[in-house]
């Protein structure tokens, strides 16, 4: 593989040809601010925040680091006063029409624009735009589209097209009229949208967001990586937890089977965990009526009845249906219980159904 030798802020990096300046900088632990960039998506270079200063021989200019590839012998400067001025200017234009409650952090939703504006000390002072131009699209039962928070980074349109292959969201209009929308400005519900939420997972500002987080959004106390409880794809996902509840599910881009992708079930199907229908105490049916019982009472009854049947009819008069929803460890224990404790091989699960 051909290698390029580059100098980034004085640090030498040796990277393969075809590496972007942003990636090369990352390789030597230099962070360059970005907004439209997402490592899961091909670069597009529209936000201009990653602008860097490059010099190769006589060539000298400012380029987008997410998009421009390294050249052998290139010298890169990522944080000159001129660059920082350019970034501040780009951010000032971005915040001009961004909702104040988002910039003030009142929404509780994470916002990459807010973080950058704070870092650069940028406020709405220099330019002031129209904050609330668009009605919310609440037509989908799982997602809200709030174009007032949209910064036109095109992460959602790229995710919809290039990750999901669904091509629902596009940029409509030109210039100041540009906006993210399904074709013909249809409400999302009236399109072929599959509600996968890939757009939402890539959105930096919460312009597309989970419509029904379990509580009004707050910062999660913990983010716990787990595996989706639905089909056999084995997608890793992040449970955003506060107190005793899952607030929402977010993408985990390191999951080997899914690399951040989730379907509607994995992303929006977590409310059952907190359902008021959950059984919280053992129940015993007596004379056709359900009565709550203690664990001791319920398990003693189960043990007694199982022992009774086994003694009277033999162990094969008992059968156990295990679960494809239970863990490996639980399935192991359940079949061990059937075989070693009850004494029967009558154990199966729903693999056939």
């Amino acid at each position, binding site marked *: 593989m051909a290698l390029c030798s580059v100098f980034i802020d004085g640090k030498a990096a040796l990277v393969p040809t075809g590496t972007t300046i942003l990636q090369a900088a990352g390789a030597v632990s230099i962070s360059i601010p970005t907004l439209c960039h997402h490592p899961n998506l091909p670069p597009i270079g529209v936000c201009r925040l990653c602008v860097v200063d490059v010099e190769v021989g006589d060539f000298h200019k400012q380029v987008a680091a997410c998009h421009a590839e390294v050249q052998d012998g290139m010298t890169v400067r990522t944080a000159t006063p001129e660059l920082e001025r350019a970034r501040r200017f780009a951010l000032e234009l971005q915040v001009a029409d961004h909702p104040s409650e988002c910039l003030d952090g009142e929404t509780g939703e994470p916002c990459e624009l807010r973080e950058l504006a704070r870092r650069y000390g940028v406020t709405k002072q220099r330019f002031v735009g129209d904050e609330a131009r668009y009605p919310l699209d609440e037509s989908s039962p799982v997602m809200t589209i709030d174009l007032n928070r949209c910064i036109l980074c095109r992460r959602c349109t790229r995710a919809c097209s290039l990750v999901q292959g669904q091509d629902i969201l596009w940029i409509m209009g030109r210039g100041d009229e540009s906006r993210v929308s399904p074709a013909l400005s249809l409400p999302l519900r009236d399109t072929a949208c599959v509600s996968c939420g890939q757009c939402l997972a890539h959105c930096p500002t919460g312009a597309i967001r989970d419509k029904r987080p379990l509580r009004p959004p707050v910062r999660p106390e913990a983010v*716990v990586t*787990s595996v989706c409880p639905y089909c056999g794809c084995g997608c890793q996902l992040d449970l955003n937890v506060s107190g005793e509840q899952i607030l929402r599910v977010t993408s985990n881009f390191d999951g080997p089977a899914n690399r951040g992708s989730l379907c509607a079930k994995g992303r929006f199907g977590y409310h059952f965990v907190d359902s008021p229908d959950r059984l919280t105490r053992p129940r015993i049916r007596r004379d056709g009526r359900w009565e709550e019982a203690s664990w001791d009472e319920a398990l003693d009854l189960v043990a007694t009845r199982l022992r009774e049947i086994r003694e009277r009819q033999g162990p094969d008069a008992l059968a156990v249906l295990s679960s494809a929803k239970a863990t490996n460890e639980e399935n192991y224990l359940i079949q061990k219980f059937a075989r070693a404790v009850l004494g029967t091989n009558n154990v*199966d699960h729903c693999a056939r159904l």
Partner: protein
Amino acid sequence: MVGSNTTEQHPIIGIEMKKALRAGAALIVADPRRTELACLAHFHLALRPGTDIALLNGMAHVILAEGLWDREFVEARTEGFEEVKATVEAYPPALAAEIAGVPVESLVGAARAYAAAKPAAIFYTMGLTQHVTGHLNVLCLANLAMLTGNLGKPGAGVNPLRGQNNVQGASDMGALPNVLPGYQQVNDPETRKKFEAAWGVPLPEAPGITVMEMVDAIASGRVRGLYVIGENPMLTDPDLCHTREALARAEFLVVQDLFMTETAALAHVVLPAVSFAEKDGTFTNTERRIQRIRRAIPRKGAARPDGEIICDLAARLGHPMVYRSQAEVMDEIARLTPSYRGVSYARLEGEGLQWPCPTPDHPGTPILHVTGFPRGRARLHGVNYIPPDERPDAEFPMVLTTGRVLHQYHSRTMTGRSPGLDALRPEPEVEINPQDAERLGIRSGDRVRLVSRRGMVEVNASVTERVAPGLVFLPFHYAEGAANLLTNPALDPVARIPELKVCAVRLEVPARSGRSGLARRDRGL
């Protein structure tokens, strides 16, 4: 793709299929319904439900007749070639296409495209297996892969896509009547000796009975006590009237679940279990990848994890099973299961491991059969076409096939309690071809009645060309309009899988609307 509506049932794998298509891959979809991938496919073989063997034999016939097979692979790594050759000779494309109800040029084109693609991967799900010929259908698919040398290499193989998050793991762990963990046979004395030594008790020799046979055994009184953990046969078994009659006869039924399911309603004792978010453990996905789940929130009320409940019960029955952690359970699994021997919690952080993983320093096995098959040579099988158990007739002139939809899952215990998701598909709809709809004067949204020999349901109609004339499709998730009131419990004699994908039905427009339910039963016999 055979019998797999991938973008709805395995959406993340569906994404990869669509990416491969955009990158220039050829796609063949064999499915009676015009699914999303069928619309995108180069060949959509809309076969009559239950004619897979004829179709696949026809494709094998073309591959052999046109010399498209991989002579080197067949000679070096397989046996039974003469048998399969003699069998598929009887399935010339014209005949095979006629049985399957597909254009002969599509069948021939698909056979050539499959043989020409190097490598070519086969994917299947229960559209292939839920037939009285389920295991034979799989053998026919495997024949195609063996004849073209598409095994043991990247991008090839015969890949079943597993439907539940841990159906692979539950099978690996021996939650099956004939095998102990790691598919070690219960009737093998050496295997039993090993587990008897580890568990300290004698173990039963005779293989047990499968889920469908349990229901029959309860009905006949041979099984008296049933312990159901996290399953809902009252919606997922075929012929629910029979299932309910059987379960109601159980002398003692325990159900352990998160919710009061249709099955739990029939129980004598219900034990509250916890969800995936309230416990530690591992799941094994469809690519045999073992991954960690982690407790994220406290348990609800007094609910407890399945494993804890089982161990508590074991102690009460005089056989304590004591573990300090789930990691310790995995260590015992590893000691007794050759394919999991190298697995430990320390190694499962991050991307997990794909079994077989025979030693603690083994990296796992993403691709099976690279250098050899467990039995030595792979076996080709000559398989002859057998029609479905129940075929349309004058009284029940249409065919019903069942399956899932994208936004619901299994018996809806989880998706039905996630309000946004449930709102995307709150009710079942039966898909009806426009020709049939016109004949019966049905429009989308109309209430229609489906009647089979076993039951009837009333559901709303969706008039669509996704199904062919004479075919209707109904998802099985819903308690109101339960598709499995209608389905046929006939079993594959080897795999013991029911023929959920084909039964004969009659489509009617009800005089006045009513609710379907278990209480009402059509006496078509």
